């Protein structure tokens, strides 16, 4: 079961942003979308969520054409963490999470249990009574993640695997919570769900991703297992600066800006 994009062309206003992107994200894997600023990562994710209609091309979710799925059906199969969230009224954290359950028929007892469990997972166990607007940026981001997580709580449902689509899930987080969130995403994939994350941090990508799509100027310049995409040549070319991959003790790779040849 997978989430597939075929030949996606997206035009924003009169500006073509994606020029025929293909992606095959498998359930059970954490797929990372990386690339420099303005390369079309977020636009690609927005097309994968169904938010943007591609001018050409299609997105299929577990074999079904995304454009034909009803919003409620879609909401029970995939959840989305946007990069930025605005909130217009003073909702509490518990109430925000409750919004994640809109597409579900669950009673109060179930809802309470889910809200507690989801907040514990993002390391905000005591925050359900706080006002969202009074939280720090990092805390808000984790509340939004919990809201998305609660929407697709079981990684596999009757209709196949469920999906988490995350746009820069760790952008406002301290290092400990970056690890918490990436582990959470990884475990979701290990349990059979699908995860697609737009990633800014290449080291976290190297640590956690199973599969990587490298974007460059609205095109996918490489796609494959993490170690085949995170290479000196591909990254240096995509990011426009000289980058060196180092091999960590054990397995895995890492890189630092200091690795660049000045």
């Amino acid at each position, binding site marked *: 079961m997978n989430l597939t994009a075929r030949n996606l062309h997206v035009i924003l206003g009169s500006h073509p942003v994606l020029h025929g992107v293909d992606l095959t994200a498998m359930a059970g894997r954490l797929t990372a979308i990386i690339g420099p600023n303005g390369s079309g990562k977020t636009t690609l994710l*927005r097309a994968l*969520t*169904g*938010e943007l209609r591609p001018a050409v091309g299609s997105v299929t979710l577990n074999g079904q054409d995304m454009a034909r799925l009803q*919003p*409620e059906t*879609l*909401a*029970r199969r995939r*959840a*989305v963490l*946007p990069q930025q*969230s*605005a*909130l*217009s*009224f*003073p*909702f*509490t*954290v*518990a*109430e*925000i999470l*409750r*919004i*994640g359950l*809109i*597409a579900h028929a669950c009673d*109060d007892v179930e809802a*309470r249990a889910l*809200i*507690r469990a989801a907040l514990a997972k993002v390391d905000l166990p005591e925050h*359900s*009574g*706080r006002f969202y607007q009074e939280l720090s940026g990092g805390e808000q981001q984790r509340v939004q993640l919990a809201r*998305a997580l609660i*929407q697709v709580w079981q990684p596999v449902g009757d209709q196949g695997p469920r999906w988490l689509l995350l746009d820069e899930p760790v952008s406002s987080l301290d290092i400990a919570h970056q690890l918490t969130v990436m582990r959470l995403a990884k475990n979701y994939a290990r349990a059979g769900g699908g995860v697609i994350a737009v990633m800014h941090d290449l080291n976290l990508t190297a640590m956690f991703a199973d599969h990587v799509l490298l974007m460059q100027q609205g095109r996918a310049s490489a796609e494959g297992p993490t170690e085949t995409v995170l290479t000196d040549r591909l990254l240096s070319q995509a990011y426009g600066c000289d980058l060196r991959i180092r091999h960590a003790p054990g397995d895995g790779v890492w890189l630092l800006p200091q690795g660049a040849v000045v």
Partner: protein
Amino acid sequence: MVAVAPPEHRIAGDRDHLGRAACLGLLLLLVFFALLSLGQGPSGVSAPQVLADWLAGREVATVDQVVMLNIRLPRLLTGMLVGASLAVSGAVMQGLFRNPLADPGLLGVSSGASLGAIASIVLGGLLPPAIAGIFGWYLVPVAAFAGSWIAMVVLYGIATRHGRTSVATMLLAGIALAAMIAAVAGLIIYYANDAQLRDLTFWGLGSLAGSSWTKLSAAAPIILLSLAAMPMLARGLNGLALGEATAAHVGIRVQRTKAIAILATAGATGASVAVSGGIGFVGIVVPHLLRLVIGPDHRWLLINSALLGATVLIAADIISRLVVAPAELPIGIITAMFGGPFFMWVLLSNRRVLDA
């Protein structure tokens, strides 16, 4: 009784129990003020007395019966429907525009309704009798509904682009819209004859004094339909509070929610304006007060706005009949007197948002 879960089973931040308790409390308050309103009037007929006689099967004096059934009861029901409409319209508009300052009265939606009503009073005579006959008493409320719907669509189109509403654009567009509508209304009034001017003056006073079963039965279906649509909006408006994209992600049909919100607001506002003229500030005060107590969850906010709106308007109507008894003030003066300063306070407490 409504069951309230014991505290240990609740989680912090879940305010459902407050919403439920408010429903119950406001229902009792509404009944209290309704009875008070029925007993209030220059004729001195006592509501408890009439009610007791009725229940005991005793003869009720004809005069008392007429006062109760043909004067006070339609006035009470009109007040309840109008109050509920204005408050819920305010709450829905605020949810739709994602802004606590949106209000049909402030942003030209009520003006659109007035224009529709004025046009139908002055120009209704120009309609071929066959068409006018179809509408009959419904002509004024239907025209008011059409006017407020058009105003609402224009306002939303201007203030919201790519799913984002700019506060400044919304408020300024509302002011411009209201001014343009007032100009057209003025032009129509200029061409009105003496009889029509008399009708317009009575209608425009913003009062429940002219309430009758005929007017009520023309407006009530539109108002009740609009109010009945509101519960369908609760979850959609909750989703919209997180932005249009996220609302769609959690499973809301965003376009349908917006279309229903606009239609229902226009229907409730239009029909209310048609029967009662311009009564301001209920739509901004009531939802704001409720949000402070029960939170912004529309599943509870909408129903409680309806109850509190109805109660507030009946209370204002009682005051309007007491201050200069046995005469009465137009109720719009009372609501503006209390609502104006309140609106100032909302503005000042939202300064951070507005100045951004």
